[in-house]
C-alpha cells in the first residue's frame, strides 16, 4: 500500500471527487491560483478550471452563504476556511442557516455542504490563529463534525462528507498535514461518519482522543507498554454524531479513562466524553475520568509559553498515572 501524507490524501480525494461528480466544486480563499495556503488544493484549478475550483474574496460569511445556497440547489460545494479561526465570521451562516434549513423548511431542501478547515495551533501563530473551535460546531444539532487523525481516515471521511446530504464540518490539523500513512490506491472506500475506532487495544486504561491528539496518544501508549501499562486508544474520528458505544464498551473493559483534546478544558469535548462515561458506565469506573486539555489562556506568542500552554505527551502520561494511582499492578 502506498504511503502518502495527510495533505496528499486530501488533495487526491478532492481531485477524485471533482472528477467523479460534476456537482462537486471547491470554494475558498487562495485555493485556486495560489493552490491553497497549505497546498491542499494544489493543481486542482488547472485541472478542473475556475468554475469548479473557485477563488473567493476574503469574505467568509459571504461565500459560506453562497455555498449553502448552491448546496440547497443540488451542488456539492467543498468550502475551505483557511484556518478555523476565520470561521467565526461565517458562524451565523453555518449555525443559523446551513444546519437548520432541512429541518425548518419541512425537508424541502438538503444542504450537502462540506466546510473543511484546519484546527489547532502550530508554531508561533499566537492567540487569534491557534484556536480549536470544533466543539462549537459539535455542539450544534444539524451539523456533522469529523476530525480524522490519519491520511487513511482523512480520505475515507472526506469521501463520506462530500457524499453526505447534510452539512459536514471537516476538521483538519496543520500539524498533521505532513504526517504519513498507508492509503490504498484505486479503492473507493468510505468511512461511516459517527464511528470511532479502537486504534490500539489495551487492558488497563482507555485514552479517548481525536485528530492530532490521537497521534500523541498512540506514542504514549507505545511508551507506557514498556512499563507494563496497557493503554487502549480510541480515535473518535467523528465528534457529532459521537460514537458513545465504542467509548462505553472500552471503559467497561478497562475501568479507567483519560480524554485528551487540544482545545481549552472547560466546556470542551473532554467534558462531554467524561459526562457520557459517568452516565453510561458509572458502575464500571475505578477512578475519576481524567481530562487533558490546553491551558485556559489566549495562546501566548512566546515559543516556550506557547508550548507550555498546549497539552502534550507528558501531560497525558501524568493523567494516566493519576488514573491508575493505587493499583499495585502498575507500580510493580
Amino acid at each position, binding site marked *: 500500500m502506498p504511503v502518502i501524507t495527510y495533505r496528499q490524501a486530501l488533495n487526491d480525494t478532492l481531485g477524485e471527487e471533482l472528477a467523479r461528480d460534476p456537482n462537486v466544486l471547491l470554494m475558498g480563499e487562495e485555493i485556486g491560483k495560489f493552490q491553497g495556503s497549505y497546498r491542499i488544493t494544489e493543481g486542482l484549478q488547472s485541472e478542473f478550471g475556475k468554475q469548479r475550483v473557485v477563488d473567493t474574496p476574503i469574505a467568509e460569511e459571504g461565500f459560506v452563504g453562497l455555498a449553502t445556497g448552491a448546496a440547497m440547489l443540488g451542488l456539492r460545494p467543498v468550502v475551505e476556511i483557511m484556518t478555523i479561526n476565520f470561521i467565526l465570521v461565517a458562524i451565523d451562516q453555518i449555525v443559523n442557516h446551513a444546519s437548520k434549513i432541512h429541518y425548518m423548511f419541512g425537508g424541502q431542501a438538503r444542504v450537502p455542504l462540506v466546510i473543511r478547515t484546519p484546527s489547532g495551533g502550530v508554531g508561533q501563530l499566537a492567540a487569534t490563529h491557534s484556536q480549536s473551535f470544533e466543539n462549537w460546531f459539535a455542539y450544534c444539532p444539524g451539523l456533522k463534525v469529523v476530525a480524522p487523525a490519519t491520511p487513511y481516515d482523512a480520505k475515507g471521511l472526506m469521501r463520506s462528507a462530500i457524499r453526505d446530504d447534510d452539512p459536514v464540518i471537516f476538521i483538519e490539523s496543520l500539524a498533521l498535514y505532513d504526517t504519513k500513512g498507508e492509503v490504498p490506491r484505486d479503492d473507493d472506500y468510505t468511512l461511516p461518519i459517527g464511528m470511532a475506532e479502537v486504534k490500539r487495544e489495551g487492558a488497563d486504561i482507555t485514552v479517548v482522543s481525536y485528530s492530532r491528539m490521537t497521534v500523541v496518544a498512540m506514542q504514549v501508549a507505545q511508551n507506557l507498554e514498556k512499563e507494563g501499562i496497557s493503554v487502549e486508544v480510541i480515535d473518535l474520528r467523528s465528534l457529532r454524531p459521537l460514537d458513545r458505544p465504542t467509548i462505553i464498551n472500552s471503559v467497561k473493559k478497562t*475501568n479507567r479513562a483519560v480524554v485528551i483534546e487540544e482545545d481549552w478544558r472547560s466546556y470542551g469535548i473532554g467534558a462531554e466524553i467524561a459526562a457520557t462515561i459517568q452516565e453510561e458506565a458509572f*458502575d464500571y469506573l*475505578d477512578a475519576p475520568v481524567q481530562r487533558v486539555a490546553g491551558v485556559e489562556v489566549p495562546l501566548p506568542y512566546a515559543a516556550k509559553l506557547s508550548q507550555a500552554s498546549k497539552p502534550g505527551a507528558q501531560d497525558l502520561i501524568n493523567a494516566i498515572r493519576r488514573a491508575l494511582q493505587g*493499583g499495585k499492578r502498575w*507500580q510493580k
Partner: protein
Amino acid sequence: MAEVTMPRLSDTMSEGAVGRWLKKPGDAVADGEIIAEIETDKATMELQAFESGTLQKILVPEGQTVPIGQAIAIIGDGAAPDEAAAPDAGAQQAASEEGGAEASARNTAEAKAEAQQAPATPAPQAAPPASQSNGQSSDERIKASPLARRMADERGIDLRQVQGTGPGGRIIKENIESFQPSAAPTTAPAATQAPAPAASQPAAAAPAPAGEVTPMSRMRRAIARAMTDSQPGTPHIYVTAEIDMAAAVKLRKQIIDSGASEVKISINDLVVKASAKALLKFPTLNSSYTTSADGQPGVARHQQINVSVAVALEDGLVAPVVRDTDKKALGTIAGEIKDMAGRAREGKIKQNELEGATFQVSNLGMFDVVEFTSIIPAPLAASLSVGVVRQTPVVRNGELAVGELMYVTLSVDHRVADGATAAQFLQELRRLLESPMSLLV
C-alpha cells in the same frame, strides 16, 4: 490529596532510595514538576509530580530505600497536614501513622515534635478491632470507586473490611479482587478440605505460598518496620493474664476419677486444647510473618491449627506438634503429647513430629514457676507461657476465697499483631478455661 509513590524507573528496579528531596513540606508543586531525585540500582533519576498542589508530607526521608509502589510523600490541597488528614481514615491514616512510626524511628527531637502534632488519628497500639480493618467506622462514607462498590455488592463483601489502595484510601477493583475475609471463624473449617501434608509444612516454612499471603496494610508494614528497628529479628510483645483454674482443676479430677480417658489429663492438656479453640477466633495469631512472591511483607494465615508443646530434655528442648489440635478430643491430645514427650526424652521422636507448628505452648508449672515469658520460635506469630496453678486468696462476689490461679503470658510477634489482639485472645482463653466444659464439646 494524592500519594506520591516510589516509581518504577527501570525494568529491573524493585526498590529505590530517595536521593534528595527538591521540595519541602508546604511547598507548592505543579503537575509535571520535578520534586525529588530517586536513586535506583542503576542511576539517579528525577521524580515528577503528576498532581498539582502542596507537598503536604514527606513520608520517606532522604537516603531511605523503599520498594516501588510505596508512598513516599503526600501532595494535598495545601490545608494544614493534620486538618487535611483528619477527615479521611484508611490509607491516609495509615500513611500518617507510617510517617509517625518512621519519625519515632528517626528519634530526633524534631521528629518527635512532628509526631506529637499528629493527634488526628489513634496510635498504632490502639488498633481498631479486626472487623474494621480499614480503620473506617461504620457510619462514615467509605471511599470506593463505583466499580468496587458494585463488585463488593455482588460478592457480599463488607466494604468496611477492605483496605483501599487508591488515592485517599479509595477502595478500587483490585482491592476487592484480592480481598480475603479476615477474622471470620468460617475460614478455619475450610482447612479440613485441604489439609496441608505435614512434611510440606515444616516449622521454618516461610515464605509461605504466595496465594495464602495477605499483604500487610501500610499501617501494619509501618508497625512491623518500627518494631524491628527497635527489636531486630522478631519484635516481641508480652501480655499476661491471670486465670482462675478452679473449675478446670475440678473438671480434670472428674475426668481422671471417672476413668473417662485412658491417659491422665494434665492441666497443660487443657491449656493446649483451650489455646487451639481460642486461635479459631483469632487466626491472626495462628499465622506467620512472611514475604509474598513479589517481596512485599505479608501475613500467611495457616490453614491448620497445630499447637506444639515445649518439652524439656536433659540438655535442651524440643516441641512436638499436635496436628489439628482444635479438632481433636482432649483425651487424644493428652495421649499424643504423652507419647511424643516420652519418645522425645528417649531421643526417639521423629523429625516430622517436630515440624509444622503454628502456635506453641510452654509450661514451667511443674517447676513452680509463677510467670515467665517465652521467645516465639520462628516463624510463628505467638507462643504461650504457662505458669503453675497455685492456691491464692481471691475475691469472689465480694468475699475472700481460696482460688486456683494460673498466670499465662502470650508472646506476640508485633509485626503481625498488636497488644489488643493478644489481650482479646487471652480473654477468650480465660473464658474457655474458667468454663472448661466448652473444651469437651
